[in-house]
């Protein structure tokens, strides 16, 4: 077990967007029937074959650290959450497609996670404002996931998709929009692409 490399990925987002359901889906290949509030942090693990079928095939453990709470929490909660942000290999930002505020809050979430993650020589943005430049040089890959796509009425879908396309541009992230977790299918819709990734999410299979 120890011989396999570990990859630590944070799952961030407002409360109620579906992070715990998403993590459960990725790791257990099952739909989570009874989600409740995540207190602190809950971790789940997925065994992933990187570049399956090629001679460079390697098996990784992907640890998904699902961190609960909201971006407006008290500073004591924020400083406690900061211990989880060490040595992170990737961040999944989850937002609810039916709730615009959750998408806007993602900027603050990423600032919180990346500021803790910055190297000693890195500049710490102290005014808390979103700085696009920071994300350009960001070495940590970001993946943007939008949930509850099927709860949007038909006529609004294209508008929502354009908005999220801008969002993923801002983050320089790859984007996936998911339908509601209770249905047996998940239809993946990938828009936007960045090639600065050290591991590929395309090899995730959903039953």
């Amino acid at each position: 077990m120890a011989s396999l490399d570990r990859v630590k990925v944070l799952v961030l987002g407002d409360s109620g967007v579906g992070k715990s359901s998403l993590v459960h889906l990725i790791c257990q290949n099952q739909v989570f029937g009874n989600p409740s509030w995540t207190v602190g942090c809950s971790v789940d693990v997925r065994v992933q074959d990187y570049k399956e079928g090629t001679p460079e095939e390697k098996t990784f453990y992907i640890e998904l650290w699902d961190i609960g709470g909201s971006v407006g929490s008290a500073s004591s909660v924020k400083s406690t959450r900061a211990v989880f942000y060490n040595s992170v290999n990737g961040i999944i930002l989850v937002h609810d497609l039916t709730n615009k505020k959750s998408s806007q809050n993602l900027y603050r979430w990423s600032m919180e996670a990346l500021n803790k993650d910055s190297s000693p020589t890195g500049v710490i943005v102290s005014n808390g404002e979103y700085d696009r430049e920071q994300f350009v040089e960001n070495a940590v890959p970001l993946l943007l996931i939008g949930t509850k796509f099927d709860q949007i009425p038909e006529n609004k879908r294209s508008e929502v998709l354009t908005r999220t396309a801008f969002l993923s541009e801002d983050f320089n992230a790859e984007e996936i929009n998911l339908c509601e977790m209770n249905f047996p299918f998940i239809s993946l819709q990938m828009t936007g692409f960045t090639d600065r990734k050290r591991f590929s999410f395309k090899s995730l299979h959903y039953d």
Partner: protein
Amino acid sequence: MSFLVDSVIMFTSQVLFFGFGWLFFMRQLFKDYEVRQYVVQVVFSVTFAFSCTMFELIIFEILGALSSTSRYFHWKLNLYVILLVLIFVVPFYIGYFVVSNIRLLQRQKLLFACMVWFTFMYFFWKLGDPFPILSPKHGILSIEQLISRVGVIGVTLMALLSGFGAVNCPYTYMSYFLRNVTDSDILALERRLLQTMDMIVSKKKRIAMTRRQMYQRGEDQNKQTGFWGMIKSVTSTQTGSENLSLIQQEVDALEELSRQLFLETVDLQATKERIEYSKTFQGKYFNFLGYFFSIYCVWKIFMATINIVFDRVGKTDPVTRGIEITVNYLGIQFDVKFWSQHISFILVGIIIVTSIRGLLITLTKFFYAISSSKSSNVIVLVLAQIMGMYFVSSVLLMRMSMPLEYRSIVTEVLGELQFNFYHRWFDVIFLVSALSSILFLYLAHKQAPEKHMAL
């Protein structure tokens, strides 16, 4: 003519209050959520506006602004509207939103919302039975019936909040109660938390790897049934799945531990921040206030006990008493009428402002603590209901703090309620709440250092 002018003034002020409630809702309560149902925002702002108008009318009463007939008219109007909102509109919408959140009842939302409302009305009515709040000569549909019940609920809320606030305020302000937390304590806890997380991760890795190997070997997760299945299960190793369930139990226990450690760390961080704050100038100021408030708190508890034990109801208000004392004992002569008006205006004004501010802050804190994106609408409506009832009962109780000449309009408008009962009830609940808060805080304070000893 003057009636028209007065009405315009009242209306403008109501619009102002409405705007303030709207802003408060957008900027403070819902700043992290998206407002989708404007009904909720409107209902909240309307409740806030009409509650504040009642306070405004009291102030006008003391100042003698506007003509007395128009004041009386607006009092009555305001009261009817606010009762309408508190008893019909808000509970109905609460029922409606609760029902919308429940999956099963999506079809007949309105029907179920009406059912919820009828249940609420039934309990609301039953509330009046055990209390001697009315004289029997009132009819069943009179306004006194409704106000009396709203008053009981509101007074209970006020007393609970006051009791807890009176005890909690010195406890939070004074640095005497702050536990000593050092950086190394926090670091030790954080290290424990991370270690627990690592243990959870390694166990989950084992589970995942074992499951994957079992899957690759074609072994079924479910136990095999049938006769041959039983024979097979005896011989082949089912220890795979048994091991799994054992490890899973360990993981569950570790996860519970990690949650507790997280909460403890948050607690320690909060205490450390408070310690740092107490060293600043503001912190020292609040510390001093804390001593002052603790004396006030003890005084109030003492007075409440005396009131209950000796069955005493204050006949005069503090302003007149104060003036009497200064005139009779200290021999200072001044124009009683003039000063009593101004002093009671200031006193009542301070009471109003602090109670509104205190309530809004408490509601905000409560809202942040318990709401999520699903339940935010319901919670805001519940808070609006509490706020309305709170403000109505504070008008009721404020009657005691005003000199006789200003009390008359409150008595006239609210009808013949047994005001003494409300004061007695307030004292009882205040005492109960304050004593149980002291007990609760004492236990919590004692328990915390013991937890750290065990680390």
